[in-house]
């Protein structure tokens, strides 16, 4: 029963994911028509305006077909990774994204690691010291973090650690693993602070909840060492909702990276999106938006599946019934 349930669950999620992607892709495609100015002018870019180029553009982008037909052709190409060519640089969109993706992934994962490594212990600590100054301080830090947009935090960090004391470089992405870590620390911390609040809040709530459970009281009554009660009994169970939220947070960090990349002048996918949006480079905007959305939705799917494996109650409970 259980594997069948699992397969059904994943299948249903994948269908939902595909529907969502289809809706998003339609929205992304219509961007071309939403943008002010005629479609030919947008796609022409800096090429000279002659009847011949206009005709060539109409041919190349199938503008003589109906709207839905155009969408269908575009979608078919997009599925094969072909989003057309950038208007700004005239290189294929996919190449432009590929050359920038590594840096963004690096930054996102680095920030994610910081969020998890600091957020979870801080949240647990706040729960253990409930209603004390420590608790209020940690929760307050979280509130400030979520209230501070990543670019504001970024500028404060730049001022403190690159201008006042030059511990970290003010710009550049570094080369090689350690150099890159050194260069990306400030951006990653700025990004991490915005996601930290959610992790702290969740861990704190989950930990308070699991410390209240009967099995914790019972374990204490039996004289099991306090550390073992906290770690093995309370903490492990408190982790379930945190793991569930992990995907959400990773997605949040990936979109927040846009602001951080612009603040620190890092040439990542987010900065590429902002440059393309400012330049009205619609094919590039379409490609980046669709890929980022797909990545975020995929992460959400993976988290849902992960949730099944983390919480045995979900795995066995429903499967057995």
């Amino acid at each position, binding site marked *: 029963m259980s594997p069948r349930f699992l397969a059904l669950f994943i299948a249903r999620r994948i269908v939902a994911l595909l529907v969502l992607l289809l809706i998003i892709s339609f929205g992304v495609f219509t961007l071309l028509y939403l943008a002010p100015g005629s479609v030919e002018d947008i796609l022409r870019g800096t090429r000279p305006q002659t009847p011949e180029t206009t005709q060539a553009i109409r041919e190349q982008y199938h503008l003589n077909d109906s709207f839905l037909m155009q969408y269908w052709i575009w979608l078919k190409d997009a599925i094969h990774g072909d989003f057309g060519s950038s208007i700004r640089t005239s290189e294929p969109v996919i190449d432009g994204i590929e050359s920038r993706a590594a840096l963004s992934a690096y930054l996102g994962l680095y920030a994610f690691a910081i969020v998890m490594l600091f957020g979870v212990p801080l949240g647990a600590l706040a729960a253990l010291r409930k209603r004390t100054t420590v608790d209020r301080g940690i929760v307050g830090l979280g509130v400030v973090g979520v209230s501070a947009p990543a670019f504001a935090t970024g500028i404060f960090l730049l001022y403190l650690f690159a201008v006042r004391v030059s511990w970290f470089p003010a710009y550049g992405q570094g080369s090689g693993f350690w150099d890159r870590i050194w260069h990306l620390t400030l951006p990653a911390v700025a990004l991490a602070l915005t996601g930290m609040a959610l992790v702290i809040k969740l861990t704190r709530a989950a930990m308070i909840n699991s410390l209240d459970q009967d099995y914790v009281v019972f374990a204490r009554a039996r004289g099991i060492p306090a550390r073992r009660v906290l770690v093995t009994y309370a903490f492990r169970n408190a982790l379930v909702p945190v793991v569930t939220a992990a995907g959400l947070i990773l997605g949040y960090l990936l979109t*927040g990276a846009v602001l951080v990349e612009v603040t620190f002048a890092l040439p990542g996918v987010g900065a590429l999106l902002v440059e393309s949006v*400012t330049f*009205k480079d*619609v094919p590039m905007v379409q490609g980046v*938006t669709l890929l980022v959305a797909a990545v975020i939705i995929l992460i959400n799917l993976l988290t849902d599946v992960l949730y099944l494996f983390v919480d045995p109650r979900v795995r066995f409970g429903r499967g057995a019934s």
Partner: protein
Amino acid sequence: MIPAAELPVARTRRRARVSILIVFCFIVVAVVAVFAIFGNLIAPYDPNEQNLLVGLTRPSSTYWLGTDDLGRDVFSRTIVGARTAVVGPILIALGAMLIGNTLGLIAGYKGGLVDSTIMRWVDLMWALPGLLVAIVVVGVLGGGYYLSVALLILLTAPYDTRIVRGATLEQRALPYVEAARTLGLSSKRIMVRHIWPNVLPLVVANTFLNFAFSLVTLSALSFLGLGVGPGTPDWGRMLAESQTLLFDNPAAALAPGGMIVITAASMNLIGDWLYERLSDRGRAR
């Protein structure tokens, strides 16, 4: 509606002290509101007046926060910048409240096909990364402050809808709703006059949180050059334009940045505080 015997208990138990922090938050919000309304009168200099003879200076007794590279007074610009930081988020919070309450009440009360249609829309909007959508749509449409505001209303409304729907579902099962229905009141009247007042406290608390969220997102759009026009005294825009001055006059970038953080944090704390108080009171009922 409220059993009389429970009232005193609920009152005495929830007579919580207002912490100093919350008082501080209210003061911050009041000051920002005064800046937003009377900013032009308070500001010591014209925020847009360029003085190239003065140029870029550090904080001094004449220019409290120094001047930017065009010789504009940073202090005056920060005060006047409160206006775009407050007007947009208020419109967004109220707009989202209006849409969210209407849809949430209908979805929660009517149920059935109406409910699932509205909730599918809400689910869709939740699955979309909001900031990304805002950047792409505002950017491709050509940018602008009120365009950003309108889009953020649409992106924020689902949060309100979900909260109001949940609360309405809870209320719908209560005897007073059934009584009102037995009396033959129209569903519109039951929703607006009977259920909505009971849902309102949560909505108000959530509106503060929405305000903070919209303030941060709007300033992010302005920071990216998609919100207000160039040169406007707006906190996000000022940050972007003064970022390169970090070595020469850090105050030009840090002052607007600090204002965004303090204002948003105050609104978040007030919202959390209200939420805690009001949802507890709801439970005591």
